[in-house]
């Protein structure tokens, strides 16, 4: 049994000097805020944890681990500050059982069952005191009535608490055949997140601003992961192994407090103030809410013409539907090959399905974009689909801009040769390699792999070639 206590305190403070160009004289000068002369900022966050762990090892075959954490964060009000996070894991070393002990097929076999709750309190984007009613002084450009310094009531949420994720997991670790020919693991899990912390719109007028962080949603993720390593050749002169993994995950938004839909973080389209992706009840998290585009006979989209999905004779938001951006299937594989002094390593990664929003198409691919707005502007990019003369309102929230994000990327490839005994015990390895060597995808934009499913890349991901020499004295 173990127990422990941990206390952490972070203080973020500093002073700043600010300068301005004098509005009258144009001279650069110190810009002093009389209410806060040093432009001082100060924030303090404290975290405290207690934890206990118990291990039970029964007959060397049945292993039970139980932990309990109690965590407190100063970002939450005192009555909601402590989160209790239990976890229990059970493992059955099946290989130790009499029926497998002498097996030539099974070098190892272990069944795992787990349940655990973890907590998340990462809301520091909302400042250090998000639950307290506080007033902040305004700066010297934000005054109003002459001769009096303004103070502004900050938005706060007195009901903030931990986001909790409970994971139930069943897994199998195995090592099969002679000299570990095939090893790996299979896991099936269900994760349920409650009190999800996210920035949401509050009921208008009932809060000190329009959007703030709250514990607003419940989500479930179900999935499975398989990892395999095959040591195909394993001899003195030659080694060759292949590894691979594939995972499946499907999420669902179960509940949103007081609503059916909230904007997903990072789900806004660049430059125009439209939200593309939402967490909507009954849908996968981060789903794009879009119209179904209508195309002409030549297959070109007809701007602002959409399918009247609900058949009411007009195109409104009720005709939109949800398209999950996040892929359900992701995978990776690689290989390592050695022959005498020669070595080769390669790794690949990819996803099956998922969608990416090609925002470059609407940002640069319409006629009006190249018409100078004011004469100093130079927008001479015209790269895209000409039917769009201008971009307005609904035309951007079309499934036309959503493309299949399936891809296979060669993440790295390297080939090396090692010179033994170059001089006395000195060895030297010479290698050439490449990162991001190629990508196979039908996606027409820069890169199908984007954090929020919205491709805003202007520059492509770099392809890096390297060669080198390692000398070991």
């Amino acid at each position, binding site marked *: 049994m173990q127990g422990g206590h941990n206390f952490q305190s972070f203080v973020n403070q500093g002073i700043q000097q600010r300068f301005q160009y004098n509005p009258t004289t144009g001279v650069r000068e110190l810009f002093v805020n009389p209410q806060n002369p040093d432009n001082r900022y100060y924030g303090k966050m404290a975290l405290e944890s207690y934890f206990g762990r118990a291990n039970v090892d029964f007959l060397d075959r049945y292993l039970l681990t139980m932990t309990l954490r109690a965590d407190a964060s100063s970002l939450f009000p005192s009555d909601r500050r402590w989160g209790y996070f239990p976890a229990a894991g059970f493992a059955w070393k099946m290989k130790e059982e009499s029926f497998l002990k002498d097996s030539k097929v099974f070098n190892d076999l272990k069944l795992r069952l787990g349940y655990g709750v973890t907590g998340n309190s990462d809301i520091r984007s909302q400042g250090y005191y998000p639950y307290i009613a506080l007033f902040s002084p305004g700066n010297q450009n934000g005054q109003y009535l002459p001769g*009096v310094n303004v103070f502004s009531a900050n938005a706060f949420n007195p009901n903030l608490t931990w986001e909790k994720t409970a994971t139930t997991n069943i897994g199998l670790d195995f090592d099969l055949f002679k000299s570990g020919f095939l090893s790996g693991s299979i896991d099936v899990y269900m994760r349920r997140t409650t009190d999800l912390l996210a920035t949401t*719109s509050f009921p208008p007028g*009932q809060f000190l601003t329009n959007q703030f962080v709250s514990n607003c949603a419940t989500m479930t993720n179900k999935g499975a992961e398989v990892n395999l390593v095959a040591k195909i050749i394993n001899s003195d002169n030659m080694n060759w192994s292949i590894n691979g993994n594939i995972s499946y995950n499907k999420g669902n938004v179960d509940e949103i407090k007081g*609503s059916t839909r909230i904007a997903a973080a990072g789900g806004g389209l660049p430059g125009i103030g439209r939200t593309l992706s939402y967490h909507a009840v009954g849908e996968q998290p981060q789903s794009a809410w879009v119209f179904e585009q209508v195309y002409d006979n030549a297959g070109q989209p007809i701007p602002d013409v959409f399918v009247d999905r609900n058949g009411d004779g007009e195109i409104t938001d009720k005709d939109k539907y949800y398209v999950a951006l996040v892929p359900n299937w992701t995978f990776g594989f690689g290989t390592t090959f050695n022959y005498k002094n020669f070595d080769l390593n390669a790794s690949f990664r990819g996803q099956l399905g998922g969608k990416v929003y090609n925002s470059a198409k609407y940002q640069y691919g319409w006629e009006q974009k190249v018409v100078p707005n004011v004469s100093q502007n130079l927008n001479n990019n015209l790269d895209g689909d000409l039917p769009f003369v201008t971009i307005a309102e609904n035309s951007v929230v079309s499934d036309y801009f959503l493309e299949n994000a399936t891809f296979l990327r060669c993440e790295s490839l390297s080939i090396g040769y090692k010179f033994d005994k170059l001089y006395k015990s000195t060895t030297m390895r010479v290698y050439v390699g490449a990162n991001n060597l190629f990508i196979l995808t039908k996606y027409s934009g820069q890169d199908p792999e984007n954090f929020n499913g919205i491709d805003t890349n202007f520059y492509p991901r770099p392809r890096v070639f390297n060669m080198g020499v390692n000398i070991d004295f």
Partner: protein
Amino acid sequence: MKIIIRNLATAILFVALGTSCSSELDTKPVIEQSFENLLQQDPNIAKGLVSRMYATFALTGPNGPGSSDIVANDAGESAFLRGIINLQDFTADDMKNRWGDDGLDQLTTTSNWTQNNKFFRYLFDRVYYTVPQTTNLIVALNNVNVPDKALYISELRFLRSLAYYYMIDCFGKGVLLTTENYGTTTPLPEASRAQMFNYVEQELLAIEDELPITNEYGRANKSACRMLLAKLYLNAEVYTGTPRYSDALTYVNKVITEGGYTLAPNFLQNFSADNETCPEIIFPLIADAQTSQSYGNTTYLVNGSMNSDTMPISLFGATSGWGGHRATKAWYGLFGSSAAELASSSDIRASLFWTAGHSYEMNDYKTWTDGYPCTKFRNTNFLSSSSPTNFSSTDFPLFRLADAYLMYAECVLRGATGGSISQALTYVNDVRTRSGASAITQADLILDFIIDERGRELNFEGHRRSDLIRFGKFTGGSYLWPWKGNSLNGASIPDTYKVFPLPLTALDANPNLTQNPGY
């Protein structure tokens, strides 16, 4: 096994007990302060809190032009005043914008309005920023004793009513957050236009006596309250279906006779950087090039109308021109049907358009030189010389006496009791002759004349859309202007456009809210 669990339970108990000692977790701010601390420090700080509430109509945030009180795509776009201009003037006949921002084009062309348009959302969110913020302060001040407490509370109630006025006028429904129900977290029920009208009416009637006849410049007094009340009554037929023109006349008459305001000798004084000295302005939204900066106060009107491509912008006190807004012939056509006629007009208000290098017709609203930029608002002093600045120092005259004069005349013409047609004629001619326009006769004084005179006098001051709706000219096809209904010569627009759609974010956050018909 049992023992282990019991031990673990003991450990948990220890944890639970341990928590009570963790006072270190109550981290305290240093720069930000609680209400109580602020007042302890200086009871007069209450005025700084009230000042901040006035500022919510002109500034986007407390930390200069890049800061925003509300979460918005662009801080500068989110200002209350900028929203008023966008929604009241760009949607109407007088002003058009050419930037082509998604959402702004739809306002300029009165077409394709949807619940996703961020410019509707900005004004909606602004109202529902000012309303809870003022209420929060009213509740807090109710519990303490500070100098001028009663006056502050009345001023805050005025500001809350002013914010609600725009909800009534623009969206026609909403929720009613009051001092009494402040703090409820379950979504409030939807409030109808009539309910909101009644609430604002009662609030203004209640504070009319509390507010002084004169107050410090920039702060609400009796006349500001009465002016808002008169505006509410003037539009009552639109808002509730019941005309209240006599009530409107009563309050506008009080403004005129008791307020102590006089028409500025020169029209331009109302729109110049030193207009804090102007005797005509009843309620200004303050701007200052140094201390009160915003991309959404008059800076938006001045810089937005400037473009060094065709005009010497320093002549109007600007250092940067955003090349966005131009008036249409629906405005300058009220003075003359060509640049030459405008130039020869004796009306000073006809001279406030930049015609050189621009065409009279707005064949393409996206072309800067199509249509005349309006130079009514400028950042130069009227009484003295001044240097150009990046931000404007011109206060926005939200309410001014000339508006009250024209409201008086309109009420009389609409059959209000308590006034006289001869007095109405005097007021209208006072407004006209002040600017060098010819006096009219009583036979000329009809409602159609009033809407045109309101255009000549008050365009670009955030009243036009409401005025056109009141005169039955905004929707339908009886009155057309350039780019109405997204058509060069104007096209009919549906009656549902008399109110804007509620933003989707609000509908999603409060399920009691329903969308306006037609959206």
